[in-house]
Structure formats: C-alpha cells, structure tokens
C-alpha cells in the first residue's frame, strides 16, 4: 500500500498534532481544501488499515517522572521466544517488545523489552519479574540504560521534507 498525495497531505497536516479546536477535523479539511467528511473518512480507513495505530496522546515519560529507561535484552530459546514474548509484552511497564536477530560472537540476545521506571530500582524489579517468567528458557540477559538522548526528531519523510510522527 503506497501513500497517495492526499495521504501525504493529511500526514503533513496532522503530524504536529490534531488542532485543539471544537471541530478539529474541519480545521484540517479547511487547510487541505477538502471536506471534513473526506478527512474523517480517510482517517477511519487509515485506522482500519493500521496506517494509524490510534489517535491519542503521547506522554513524556521523563516529565511524568519515569526517568529510568532500560532496554532489557534476553537470550531466549528460539522454540519458546514467541510464546514468552507475548506474555512479556502484556506486562505493565513494558513497551516496545520485539524479537530481533542475534549476531554470533557480538550479540546473543533475541528478545528486546523496553522497561520504564521512576528509578533504576524499579526497572531492575521489572527485569527480575521478566527473568522469573522466562525461567529456564532464558540463558542470559542485560539491561542497557540510556545515558543521553543524542537525537529525537521523529521520522522524516524525505520526499516531503517534513517531519512525520513516529513511535512514542
């Protein structure tokens, strides 16, 4: 599914946020020179297609006090990683849980789970919970804490020359 010109315009018009006015979709429509119904119908379709995950609020973890950010990585038995990944993804405090490739001799971990806490002790406690859940299927793990944000601009659609929203 490729983006149409209208899709690109719609993304460009809403990537900075939905207007905080009584009729926000009318405001977007006016900017694009289309009807409000066209905007809403396409947004409904985009949600159905999964191109829009949802319309919502992205919290600032740091501002909300969740200042400890640990990327926990786990070397989990390949035969069991998918079933266990589903269980881990459903735990509170876990975001961005993925299975990813290993690199022999460099990187043995195939399951990544981002953990957020008010301090590192909270992150460690969550990691301990994950370790118990993984049990014997897990051979090793580490937590990589972020110590600096080097860049955070969001996705840039090169052909549009504008920022588009990305994962929170």
């Amino acid at each position, binding site marked *: 599914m490729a983006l149409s010109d209208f899709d690109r315009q719609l993304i460009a018009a809403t990537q900075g946020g939905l207007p905080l006015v009584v009729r926000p979709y009318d405001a977007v429509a006016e900017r694009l020179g289309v009807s409000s119904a066209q905007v809403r119908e396409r947004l409904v379709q985009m949600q159905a297609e999964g191109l829009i995950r949802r319309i919502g609020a992205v919290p600032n973890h740091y501002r909300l006090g969740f200042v400890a950010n640990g990327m926990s990585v786990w070397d989990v038995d390949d035969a069991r990683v998918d079933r266990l990944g589903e269980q881990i993804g459903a735990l509170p405090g876990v975001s961005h849980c993925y299975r990813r490739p290993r690199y022999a001799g460099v990187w043995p971990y195939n399951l990544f789970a981002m953990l957020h806490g008010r301090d590192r002790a909270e992150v460690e406690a969550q990691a301990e919970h994950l370790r118990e859940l993984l049990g014997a299927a897990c051979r090793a793990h580490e937590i990589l804490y972020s110590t600096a944000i080097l860049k955070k601009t969001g996705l840039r659609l090169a052909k549009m020359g504008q920022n588009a929203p990305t994962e*929170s």
Partner: protein
Amino acid sequence: MLLPEEIRLIDYLHGGFPLSERPYAEVGAALGLDEAAVIASLHSLLERGYLTRFGPLFQIERAGGQFVLAALRAPEDRFEEVTALVNALPEVAHNYRREHALNMWFVIGAESPRAAAEAIACIEADTGLKVYAFPKEKEFFVELRLPLGSGSATAGGTHGSV
C-alpha cells in the same frame, strides 16, 4: 503535578479518540467534563510538557516504510564526531547513548526497506564503523500505559467510537 482529571483524561485517551464532528465534546461527555475543559486540559498538558504530542500515531510500515533499530560501537575519543555523522542523516529518527560496548543505538525510519538499507550503508561509509541492524522480526507489544493513577498499569481495551 497532574490534576486528577488530567490523569483521567490521559488514561481515557489510551483507548482512542473519536472521529466525530465534535470529538472533544464526546470525550468530555464520557468523563463528565465539558468540551472547553477537555480542549483546555490538552492544551495545558502539551504546554507543560506532560504530553509530547496529541494526534494520529502513524505506522509508516503499513505504507511500505520501515523502522530499523541499529547500533554501533563508537570509540570514546570519536564519540562526538560519530554522533554528528549519524545524526546528520534525516532518516535517523532517534539516537541514544547506552551503557554497553555497543554504545550508540539509533532508529532509522525510511519510506522503504531499500532506503533504510542505504541509510545504514551510508553511516558505515561515513564513520568507518560496522553497523549492526536489528530489524524487528516479530512485534509483541508497542505501547506503554504508565501507571499514573492507581499505581498499576493496564494494557489493552479501546473505546474509540470509529
């Protein structure tokens, strides 16, 4: 500090947002707030930095785009130089320093897998460093619900009136 009604609003919005003519009024009706109060709350939460964004959350992968997590090992004495080279690429959406031998972790966001591969090749050429790409092979969960109120986070459940 967050007000109780702000916590309720953030919590409610985890479940989605209506695509109706007057969506803020609809959210307000569900929470016992009037339309103007919902708009004012969101405005204030954004202004005070509790929310970084309010609007559609796009998944560009559904339109053929790709996000790739990648990492490299930047020598400490070249860390700033390598940071500048990596960040110079528009495809690099996020970049974090992490405590590990692989000390730089970034996300490439591109309109196609080919463009993502080209960006990675470009970083290797510019820095002379090996880039390890960690494309997602399977996604288990991608949204965090912070336990703002009761102290326990919850997952799932939508109420979007689409």
